[in-house]
């Protein structure tokens, strides 16, 4: 996920910048990745790449898995970050420029902190999707939660119990992230008065 967020932040900044060449590259990346099922991407990085290079590049399963999910997340995060940046009022850019801030200072201190606030809820969806997408890693024989579960019930045939435990694990992860998200929203929402009433959102 961190890879995804890093890619997404850079991608989003590029998409809103005035660098036409790079922008096109990022746009192609986003379109390609979003158009290909995650499972296909995972298998590509693990098996496809090694077949393509005649075994010269042979990624270890864990590495291929993280890479595939990271690159996949990055495409969605790029769009989320772009939407966040574009939601910031242009007056904020003008005030920053009028104060002689550099592009880097402006992005870091003014634009991105406001963009992040907008980006948090959709990022939450992405994180939870990612957590669930790890279940696809069983395809390249990584012992994630779901694979461990199926191994178990292939031995003891207690389908319901095992699946219930697996589901609960995913739920716990998603719930844990939900708590983190609430804290993030509070942090980046500082200074804002809620849509309804003056309480914190």
């Amino acid at each position, binding site marked *: 996920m961190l890879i995804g967020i890093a890619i997404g932040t850079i991608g989003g900044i590029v998409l809103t910048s005035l660098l036409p060449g790079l922008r096109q590259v990022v746009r192609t990346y986003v379109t390609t990745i979003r158009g290909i099922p995650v499972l296909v991407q995972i298998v590509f990085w693990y098996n496809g790449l090694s077949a393509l290079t005649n075994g010269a590049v042979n990624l270890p399963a864990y590495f291929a898995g993280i890479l595939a999910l990271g690159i996949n997340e990055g495409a969605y995060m790029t769009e989320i970050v772009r939407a966040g940046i574009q939601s910031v*009022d242009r*007056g*904020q850019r*003008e*005030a920053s*420029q*009028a*104060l*002689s*801030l*550099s592009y880097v*200072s402006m992005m870091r*201190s*003014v634009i991105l*902190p*406001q963009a992040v*606030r907008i980006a948090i809820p959709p990022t939450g969806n992405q994180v939870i999707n990612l957590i669930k997408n790890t279940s696809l890693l069983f395809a390249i024989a990584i012992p994630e939660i779901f694979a461990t579960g199926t191994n178990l019930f292939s031995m003891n045939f207690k389908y319901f119990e095992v699946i219930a435990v697996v589901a609960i694990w995913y739920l716990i992860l998603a719930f844990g992230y939900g708590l983190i998200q609430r804290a993030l929203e509070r942090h*980046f929402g*500082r*200074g*804002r*008065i809620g849509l309804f009433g003056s309480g914190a959102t």
Partner: protein
Amino acid sequence: MPTARSSVPHTAPSSAAIARQAEGAIVLDGVDKWYGTVHVLKSVSLSVSNGEKVVVCGPSGSGKSTLIRCINGLERHQNGRISVEGVEVVDRTLRQIRREVGMVFQSFNLFPHLTILQNCMLAPMESRKLSREEARDRSIEYLSRVHISEQADKYPAQLSGGQQQRAAIARALCMQPRIMLFDEPTSALDPEMISEVLDTMMELAASGMTMVCVTHEMGFAQKVADRVVFMDEGAIAEVGPPDQLFNSPSSERLALFLRRILSH
């Protein structure tokens, strides 16, 4: 002033300093600006000297905002020459010029995620390389000067419009600019808040600041302006001292405009 300016020592004025003096604080020479095919500034020429206060007025869409936004390069002109303190406004000089030119917007444009104090401290730290302590001291000084130091730790959304605009003025002053641009600073305010912002601006004028203000506050213009510029359809239609322009407008357009704003 606490900041060291890299300009010439005043004992031996260099030729650049003399040129700056002669050229005036802001010089526009035959400036043209198009938005696509729309010609919004038509060969505008204007010279503002050091310490002068110029009020710009004119009908909506006449190019007032565009004019002052060209001075600090927020909008880029296509023909002609703009220079600020002898430095021509081109890509390479934008940041340098903006350090010396503060701007106040109609919609305040405070940074909503930062407190008033942080709003003021940001640019001095980032653009003037002040330490946190220096920036804080300076911010508190200017916030007291606009009479809102007690609001320093609040966020912009917790302030009234008048307080927000005064905070925005303080934020610009914290860069210690030599020139201030105002684009309809009171147009978004309720009547009772207008006067508190105008009072702040008058105090600033009294301090000797060079000011260019787009405003329709004729009382303010009367009291503060050395010259009033009347813009119409992208050109400067009339320039003169406020008394002359307001009491004996020489064009029908200006007379009509004055009747319209005074009837409100």
